[in-house]
């Protein structure tokens, strides 16, 4: 199934990848339903269909590595190890949220897990990722920084500024472009002058690869190469993962801009479907306990929802709290 033959992974590792993807899928489905039910207010950008990118990228990172995420970032945060309960509470604007209810869906941050923050400004995390990588270099740490952004963000000026600087200074950045074919409601052939954005990497003297983003093992393999290069001081890589978002740009988006049949074609390449076929097929794990994993995932998310629903709202005086940090 994989276009790139990965190094053999342990059974434990493969099942962990499945668990993470299943968790992202189910979290997003539940969050979308909670939005419909009015328990989460507007501003939900679901990453259903894109689970393999988050899982494969974070699967290739260590806890000490850092990520910058974006508005479609729940999956990134889950894959990097955020507490599901705290993230669900944040989506509900509760004081027990990752950001104490102050940020919401697009701004999940958890420094302890290396999640420097998700960003509501398209491309806004790119300069920040470059800066975080600079800090790692100054501190002589071998951490790497993965910055998630989409094909839309790749056209922001800061993407080009960031690629130039990261390459010049050989900073340990993974420019992770989740190419889901759309920038908001505009398809890629209307917003980008080239179909494969990774060609731009050559213009900044850095390696650029275009990979099937719905093949979690292909993602993991590409990330492995990039991480090795970054940790050894070899500088950044532009990783373009081709994928598709099954839902709209935001929850409630009627998606009239998607041509007939396109979504169905991509559903055939659903990353969870593909990985399940691999794990249960020839060369896989035989009869892996996928249903048991899905049940564990279901329980974990139910627990997260219960935690979030029971959590207190922030007190009104928090409206003006933490505008400044006390020195």
């Amino acid at each position, binding site marked *: 199934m994989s276009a790139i033959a990965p190094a053999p992974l342990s059974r434990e590792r493969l099942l962990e990848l499945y668990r993470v993807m299943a968790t992202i899928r189910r979290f997003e489905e539940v969050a979308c339903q909670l939005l419909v039910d009015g328990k989460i207010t507007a501003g939900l950008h679901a990453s259903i269909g894109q689970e393999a990118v988050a899982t494969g990228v974070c699967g290739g990172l260590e806890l000490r590595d*850092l990520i*910058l995420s974006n508005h479609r970032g729940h999956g990134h945060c889950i894959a990097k190890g955020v507490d599901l309960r705290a993230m669900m509470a944040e989506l509900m604007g509760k004081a027990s*949220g*990752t*950001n*104490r*209810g*102050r*940020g919401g869906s697009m*701004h999940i*941050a958890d*420094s302890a897990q290396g999640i*420097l*923050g998700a*960003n*509501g*400004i398209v491309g*806004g995390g*790119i*300069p*920040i*990722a*470059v*800066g*975080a*990588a*600079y*800090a*790692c*270099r*100054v*501190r002589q740490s071998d951490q790497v*920084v993965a910055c998630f952004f989409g094909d839309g963000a790749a056209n922001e*000026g*800061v993407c080009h*500024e*960031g690629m*130039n*600087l990261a390459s*010049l*200074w050989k900073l340990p950045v993974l420019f992770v472009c989740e190419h889901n074919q759309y920038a908001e409601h505009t398809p890629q052939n209307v917003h980008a002058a080239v179909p494969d954005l990774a060609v731009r990497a050559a213009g900044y003297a850095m390696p650029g690869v275009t990979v099937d983003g719905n093949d979690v093992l292909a993602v993991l393999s590409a990330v492995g190469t990039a991480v090795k290069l970054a940790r050894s001081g070899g500088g950044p890589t532009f990783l373009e993962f081709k994928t598709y978002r099954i839902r709209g740009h935001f929850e409630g988006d009627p998606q009239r801009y998607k041509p007939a049949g396109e979504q169905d074609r991509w559903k055939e390449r659903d990353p969870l479907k593909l990985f399940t076929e691999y794990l249960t097929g020839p060369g896989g794990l035989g009869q892996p306990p996928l249903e048991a994993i899905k049940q564990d995932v279901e329980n974990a998310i139910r627990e997260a929802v219960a935690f979030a629903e029971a959590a207190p709202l922030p007190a009104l005086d*928090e409206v003006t*709290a*933490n*505008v*400044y*940090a*006390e*020195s």
Partner: protein
Amino acid sequence: MRELKYWKAVNEALSEEMARDERVTLVGEDVAAPGGPFGASRGLLDKFGPWRVKDTPISEAVIAGLGVGAALAGLRPVVEIMFFDFMGLAMDQVVNQAAKVSYMSGGRQRLPLTIRTICGAGRNNGPQHSQNLEAWFCHVPGLKVVWPSTPADAKGLLKSAIRDDNPVIVIDSLSLWTSTESVSEEEVLTPIGKAVVRRSGADATVVAVGAMVPRALAAATQLATEGIDTEVIDLRTLSPLDRETILTSVAKTHRLVIAHDAVKPFGFGAEIAAMVAEEALEELDARIRRVAAPWAPVPFSPALEGAYYAQAPEIQAAVRAVLDRK
């Protein structure tokens, strides 16, 4: 005591803070090998090496954003935006990112970032290299904005900014770059958020910042020969504003003039005037006066620029006006 030039004071602050704390770094256009576009970082590359003092491409958005990321990842970075006007290229990283880290994280993250920039006003630098844009940044919760007027405060405020765990914008007036004063050898940390009364007076209060302060003091000297005793407040910090010092002065003099180089409409003088009118209208014996630039970009021609910024005579006229004198 020794005679210290303004730019050397900035240089000393950077050098001392970088020696004191290895997490302090300096990044920007021409800061390393060239020693700064105006000499502020002379010698720092040799002292601290090519990773802590680094020349960047012309990429203001990434320069500012690099500061944000580095501050989130364990450093205490100083980044330079060469001219105040170029902040326009960095607005997202300053306003949407840096300013909101502490609040948006519910206080779980902090951003010890210093942004140095130079205001080119008064040096025939033209419309795109001379602006006073401080009101933009004062209006953003989460940012601090400081603007020294003396070498001692240039050193003290920059040191305080670097030690502050918040994003602080430090503005230097290019027209004060070679000004000199006697400064103590001892380390002084000028507090952020505290104005200073440069000249105590009983008849009228003049509030000013940066390059306007010497002109306000010159106006006060002239007014003294007319028997008018002017109190001059040097704000030093624009945001957070030292309301107490302003209100205490107004309670004493009952007359307020605000002078700034920024254009009058929507300048920070409007905030001070509104604040005083809201909090202490009954203390005022005359209307508030603002002395500021007219509603136009900064002209290049020396003949025009000379008339564009308010000088001591305009401040004197405003003080006489609030005292009903001619």
